[in-house]
């Protein structure tokens, strides 16, 4: 299978001496919908900046569809469309001009540029605004304008740095649908987001980056499997000296009146209650310890970096 993006031992030290990336490796396959997650300052935008050559790397290698970004840069750049985290278009230009100019920078003839601009502006709901100076667009429209601009040369790999930041729920859903549509048509997509729900519903594979190192790189399914266990916090009426032994269940004593029990998806709560009853442990109340993707994310990110 073709590799859309290959990153090897990528490192970046900014001029002020700050090391934002400490030698990261990951790969994105063609056709993938890939999430790059991580807390603020983790190094996501730095990574994207290097891929699209807005940031000079300190070390390592990046290949886009097999084209090295240093030695084969015009080809690498043609494969790549990028939607940056911050607005970076000319506020005084109109959306239509912005798209036509961008097409020109890729050597696309004027007529084709006009057709595509119309297509993508319509697709992203901006056709009505084509002649409005772009500073007068709303935040969500500006983001869509940047998506249209990134697609104008029909890249095989589209990278979006927090495309849905500041976008309302309805618009976010329609953006998701749009991204899924172009992914289905063959465009490989990488996105960063702080909405885990977004990553969960869109992405097939995932890398979590923290303090400039990759903390996790796996499929979304594997990651979610880790969620197929729940932790229950049980308040008991009986005062306990040590954690009860419940065969098949991991159990820890939090305090004399509280235990935490891990329940796998294959197990049932009835079994647990039966075991507890056997040992004459009376349950007062039971609650689900928060254990959603967020929790997992926090865990991964809290792990001391290697």
């Amino acid at each position, binding site marked *: 299978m073709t590799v859309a993006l290959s990153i090897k031992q990528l490192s970046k030290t*900014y*001029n002020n001496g700050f090391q934002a990336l400490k030698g990261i490796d990951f790969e994105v396959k063609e056709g993938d919908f890939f999430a790059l997650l991580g807390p603020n300052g983790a190094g996501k935008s730095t990574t994207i*900046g290097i891929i*699209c*050559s*807005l*940031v*000079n790397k300190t070390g390592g290698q990046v290949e886009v569809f097999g084209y090295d970004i240093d030695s084969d*840069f*015009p*080809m690498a*750049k*043609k494969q*790549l469309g*990028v939607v*940056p985290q*911050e*607005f*970076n*278009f*000319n*506020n*005084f230009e109109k959306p239509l*001009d*912005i798209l*036509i*100019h*961008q097409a*020109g*920078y*890729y*050597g*696309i*003839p*004027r007529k084709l540029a006009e057709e595509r601009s119309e297509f993508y502006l319509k697709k992203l709901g901006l056709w009505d605004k084509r002649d409005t100076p772009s500073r007068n667009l709303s935040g969500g429209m500006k983001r869509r304008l940047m998506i249209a*601009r990134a697609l104008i040369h029909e890249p095989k790999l589209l990278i979006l740095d927090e495309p849905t930041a500041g976008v309302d729920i309805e618009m976010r859903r329609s953006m998701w649908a749009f991204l899924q549509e172009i992914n289905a048509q063959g465009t490989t997509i990488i996105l960063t987001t702080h909405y885990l729900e977004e990553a969960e519903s869109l992405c097939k594979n995932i890398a979590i980056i923290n303090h400039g190192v990759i903390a996790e790189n796996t499929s979304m399914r594997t990651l979610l499997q880790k969620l197929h266990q729940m932790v229950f916090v049980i308040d008991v009426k009986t005062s306990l000296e040590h954690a009860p032994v419940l065969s098949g269940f991991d159990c820890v004593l939090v305090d004399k009146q509280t235990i935490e029990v891990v329940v796998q998806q294959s197990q049932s709560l009835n079994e647990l209650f039966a075991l507890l009853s056997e040992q004459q442990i009376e349950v007062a109340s039971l609650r689900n310890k928060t254990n959603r993707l967020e929790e997992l994310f926090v865990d991964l990110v809290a792990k001391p970096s290697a």
Partner: protein
Amino acid sequence: MNLTEQWIAFSTILSREIKRFMRIWMQTLLPPVITITLYFIIFGSLIGARIGEMGGFSYMEFVVPGLIMMAVITNSYSNVVSSFYGAKFQRFVEELLVSPTPNYIVLWGVVMGGVCRGLLVGLIVTIVATFFADLRVESPLLTITIVLMTSVLFSLAGFINAVFANSFDDISIVPTFVLTPLIYLGGVFYSTELLPEFWAGVSQLNPMLYIVNAFRHGVLGVSDINIELALIIVAGFTVVAYSYAMHLLNSGKRLRQ
């Protein structure tokens, strides 16, 4: 990119530059025309009438070439410095940096934008000048060569200034403190023959002197300096400025982090 694609990229950049200065013509085209016209009226007609001859010509005839050159220089420079610094400041220079457009096309695109504005203002000023003086061009080829070279040179200089600028102040420092004094002292308003020997010697170090005089030679057929030397100096500066600008783009200094 193949040559056709490079040509498309180049003409896109150039047309964007031209659209920019045409859209804001009140800031870009009108002021220099008004300023230079005032120079014509005040120095050429009013004061010039009392000065009499300079270098064998009426004072008006003498100052016109220098003033045209001044318009070309300042407009080429300020077009590129404000346009490219604006692109850097608003970050839309990134549109070009992520694209496969080669650096030399980026540079020629913005530089030719500056040249277009320099030549356009130069042309308007020349037309205005015909109302004040009898203009005839002695050697058109020399005149055009020197105007083009100068315009390219100062567009390149404006580009370098824009790359280094970190604020809007930085883009007015060079025009105010370097360009304007050098132009004024470069023999726009007087012939260096009038200067005491020492200051005439110092003036030889001012590159503007060669530019203004080469242009004046093209128009009037006379100059204070050796014309071949002037062309070599302008060409030399242009090559150095071009190489340095390309170096800045290739290394990504101050454009990429």
